[in-house]
Each structure stands twice: as C-alpha cells, then as structure tokens.
C-alpha cells in the first residue's frame, strides 16, 4: 500500500541549474530501494524531495497513491534518517524518540511501548536518558534509527546513514538494517555512494548521475548487465577494466582486438556481437573475470605486475599490459613478484562491449 511513485520529477535551482531532472521511478510496497551515485548526482535531493524537505519544482510524487508533491513534510508520514543523524542535541535519547509521536499525538502508553520495543531491538535501553552528546557514533546512529522506527511511518528515507561510521561498525549496521527491514517490512529508500551497501542491501538499485537515472534493477542484474560504462565502473572496486577495442570478422570467426587482449571470440559472443564489427568499441572485463589459469574460451595475454595488494582472502593485482593497466582479482595463493611478467586469461564469456562514443552497452540479450 505504501509504494512511492516519482513522475518526471525535477528540482530546478534556477538559472538552468538542475539538482534533479525528469526523474521517474516506482518503488514498490515494502521494497528496499537504494539510490546510488557519486556525490552531486541528485540522489540526496531526490530523497529530500520525497520527504518534502526539498521543493519539487516539476513533476509529481505520490506515496500510497496519494499525491504528496505539495504537502508539507509532516503530512507525508515519512521518517528520515540523516547522514549527520540530526539528533536533537537538547533532548535525551528517550525524548528524541518521543518527539515525533508527540507531534502526532500518539497516546502516552503507546509511546512508551514503542520506545521500549525500539530500544530493546536496537540495544539502546541503557542510554535512554542520555543526551546525544554522551553517545558514541554507533549509538547515535541507532538512536536515529530508533527515532524513525517508533514513528511507524509509511516510508523510511535514509540519507547515507552509515557513512559516518567506522568500517567495522558499518558492516554490522548494514546487516542489522537489512534484518530490521525484513522485520518491519516498510518501504525504504536508502541513499548511498558506497556500491557495497547498494549491492548488499538493496532489493533494487537505482544508479544516478547528474540528476538523472542511469539504471534501475536488482543488484546482481545491474552488476551483470550494466547499461553503460558509468554503471559498469561505478558498481565495483576495482572498477571494470575498459580497453579500446575493435571487432573484425572473417567468415564465422569474429576477432577481438583490444590492445593486449586479442583473439577470436567464443561462439556465443561472436554471434552476439557480430553486428558491431568495425565500430569504435570499449571492451569491458571485470577484475574477477581475468583468470590466472587457462580456461577454454579465455584469451591469454601477458603483463608486468606493477601493484600487488594482498587482502587476505584474495589478492588484487595490477599489471601493465601493452599500454594498458589491467586490474585482476586473484585468489590468495597467487602471489607474483612486482616486475614479474605473468600470463593471464581474459574470460571472454563474461565480456562486455560498449559503444566507444556513447558509452552505452552493446545489447547482449540472447
């Protein structure tokens, strides 16, 4: 019932300066939608427009089928968790949580019940009477969450809520948020610039750039089928390797010429990409699709190791191949020396091709 619909929504700052332009998006009831993008891409603005904190200059926003475009934030029944947490510094944890219910005239015993419940879920019981200034970052984060939960809003809106936490805590909170979402089951919009958060938390991801949506879809689907180089590169670290390439055909055989990686395409890929022969292309391959051992259909090439990052579970290697820097994700036992010349195998079964001028993916629909 509490789905969100954005219909050609824009935020015009004047003088042709748009924060968000013509964004249309449907978020389903109970869905966890992640808005992902680099800073300044309009994701926070979009979120704030849903909340009513930012004016929508064009288009419509509806929540639960109700047009809220011109409604004040307080009439939208949404809860926002801010990056800075925005806890009321002059109120105790308990009062922070109570504030929203007080504003909505929730009965007192109901207030008490919800605060107690949220506090127990979030482990905040010992801190209820403390001021936010006496809490650690993680605790504040929980208070901000608690404050949103007790309100029992139609929609949760979270604006980079984890970015002020240290790495370990961030990982834990990620999982807790997912669990929480499963339990509460409320429609959630989550803004982040961190692709890991996006991949692990979202039911769907909406990737934005320059005020527009680039791609929307389930995490793995987007990962597997990025619509363009921007999405392809943004969604992973190390970013997808991109190499200028050309295809040439000779009878049935389609040959790839992407600098160091050159050779005939496997049969399936050959069929898929035949149409692009002669075009200016970008050849894309994720770091994990470059293998250290031969495999049928994988094209061998050589490179000189320039960087080796042993992460423990895996090693990240950068090699210099021809003029190209290529990132490789290798297993932890593969430990070449810097400067060593090694042979690698590009698994062309997982290759991507993009148009060199537009950056759009060459359709690989079968």
């Amino acid at each position, binding site marked *: 019932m509490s789905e969100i619909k954005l219909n050609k929504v824009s935020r015009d700052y004047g003088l042709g300066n748009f924060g968000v332009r013509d964004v249309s998006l449907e978020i389903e009831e109970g869905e966890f939608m992640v808005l992902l993008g680099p800073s300044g891409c309009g994701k926070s603005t979009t979120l704030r427009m849903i909340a009513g904190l930012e004016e929508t200059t064009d288009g419509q926003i509806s929540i639960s089928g109700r047009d809220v475009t011109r409604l004040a934030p307080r009439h939208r029944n949404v809860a926002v968790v801010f990056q800075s947490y925005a806890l*009321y510094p002059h109120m105790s944890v308990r009062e922070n949580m109570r504030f929203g219910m007080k504003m909505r005239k929730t009965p007192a015993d109901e207030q008490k019940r919800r605060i107690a419940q949220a506090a127990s879920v979030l482990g905040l019981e010992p801190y209820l009477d403390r001021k936010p200034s006496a809490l650690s970052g993680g605790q504040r984060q929980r208070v901000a969450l608690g404050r949103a939960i007790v309100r029992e809003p139609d929609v949760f809106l979270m604006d980079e809520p984890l970015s002020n936490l240290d790495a370990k805590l961030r990982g834990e909170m990620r999982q807790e948020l997912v669990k929480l979402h499963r339990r509460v089951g409320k429609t959630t919009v989550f803004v982040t610039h961190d692709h890991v958060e996006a991949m692990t938390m979202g039911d769907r991801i909406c990737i934005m750039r320059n005020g527009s949506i680039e791609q929307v879809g389930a995490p793995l689907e987007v990962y597997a089928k990025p619509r363009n180089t921007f999405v392809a590169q943004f969604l992973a670290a190390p970013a997808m390797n991109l190499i200028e390439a050309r295809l040439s055909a000779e009878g049935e055989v389609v040959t790839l010429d992407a600098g160091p990686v050159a050779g005939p395409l496997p049969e399936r890929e050959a069929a898929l990409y035949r149409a692009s022969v002669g075009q200016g292309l970008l050849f894309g391959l994720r770091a994990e699709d470059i293998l250290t051992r031969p495999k049928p259909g994988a094209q061998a090439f050589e490179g000189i190791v320039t960087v080796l990052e042993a992460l423990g579970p895996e090693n990240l290697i950068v090699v210099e191949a021809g003029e190209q820097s290529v990132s490789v994700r290798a297993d932890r036992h593969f430990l070449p020396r810097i400067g060593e010349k090694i042979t690698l195998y590009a698994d062309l079964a997982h290759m991507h091709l993009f148009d060199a001028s537009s950056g759009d993916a060459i359709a690989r629909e079968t």
Partner: protein
Amino acid sequence: MGRRILSHIGLILAVTIVLFPILWVLRTSLVPAQDSYSSAILPSVTLDNYRALFAEKNFGRNYMNSLIVASLSVIVTMPLAAMTGYAFARFRTGGRFARFATLASQMLPPVALALPTFMLFRNVGLTNSLTGLTIVYAAINLPFLTWILMGFFEAIPEDLEGAAMTDGATRWGAFWRVVLPVAAPGIMAAAVLGFILSWNEFLFALILGGSNTATVPVALASLQTSNGVQISNVAAGVSLAILPLMVAAKFIQKYLVEGLSFGSVK
C-alpha cells in the same frame, strides 16, 4: 612556560589599566565629597554619597526604570531578532540587501534621529512612558542582535529542522521546539548584549523620557550641573550602574563566550 609568564605579565598590566579607574571611582563614591579629589586613598569612609543619591535624587526610581526598560526591551526584541536572524540565515530572506539594510539602519548618528523619533512618538502618545522607551530600545537593538543570532543559526545543521519537520512539526514548530533550544547559548549571549546596550543608552532616554521615566544614564548626566559636577554622587551612581553587570559577570561571561563562539566561526 616563558610565553605563559609573559602573558600573565601582559594581562596583569591590562587588568591594572582597566581596574584602576573603576576602583578609583568606587573609592571616590565612598569618601566625603570634599575628599573626592584628594589623592589620599581612603581618608574616611561614608555612605553619604549613596544616601544622597537615593534620598535627594530619586535614584531608586531611575534604577528601577533602567531595569524595567532594559529587561522589557530584551524580552520584546529577542523573539523578533531570533526570527529575523533565522530567516536571514536559513531562507536568505531579502538577500544581501535586507541583511545590509538592517545593519545600515544603525548607522545614522542618534543625534539626527532623536528629534524625528520624538515627534513621531509624541503623536501616538508614547513619549514620557517606559513603553515608548522599551519600543525604541527593542528596535535599536534588533539589527545588532539579528546579526549576532544569524551567525548561530547558520551554524546549526539544517537537517535538524528536516528531522523535526518529518517528525511532524511545522516549520514554526521546528524553529520553536528544536532550533531555539539548540541556539540557547547564543540567545542568552545576545540577550545579555541587548540588556547592556539598553542599560547604557543615553540620548533617546533623555529626549523621550520624562520625570518619571528617567533612566540611570540620564540621572548620571543630570549630575553635571551648571554649578559644578557632583562628582561624588556621580561616582556612587556609576558604581551602582555597573553593579548588576559585575554581580552577573560570571554568568554573563559564560554565556557570552560560549554563546558567541558557537556562531562566530564555523
């Protein structure tokens, strides 16, 4: 170490320069009138100067007037200054022009304003009343306090109001329940400054006031008569005039520094 000792020396010097005149005034207020100008430190001590001030000069009334007008004007002006400062800080209301025009309204010398103000106030029956003086002070202090408070509000994260508004508060509610309490130190600092300004103002108090509404500075100035300055009474009056601010110094200090530093630099 070295630097700290040098600082102490410098500060003690500064304190001496500031304190000596004040202590000398206190001393002058406590010696008989004919010893006002003697260089003896305390030839004899008397409270006659104070007694005369209250018995012959109606200083008690002046003191009450000053307290009333200074307090009331602060009470009137603070909400207005807070709201205007908030509008300037958050909504950039009126842009630079409004900000500047507000400040510019303070730049005309009071001597040029006193008579026009008197005439306008006279027409609505607000001369010779504490109400009129309160309104003038509230207006005089408004721009300065607005500017000070603007600094505080700029330093308060906007998300706080966002949180309050999504929590169900109106814009006004967010301001009232969240922004104001958070800005409390700044508000206190501004209020103290407003009080001091009103407490010390002279020209408008003189022109707009009457016999029953004379404030402390007017009373002090009236001790400068054509047949001599009643310096011992002046000393007593000055001592009493700075008394409330000395008594509250600790409190004032705390709020002024805490309050002002909150907003002045981000």
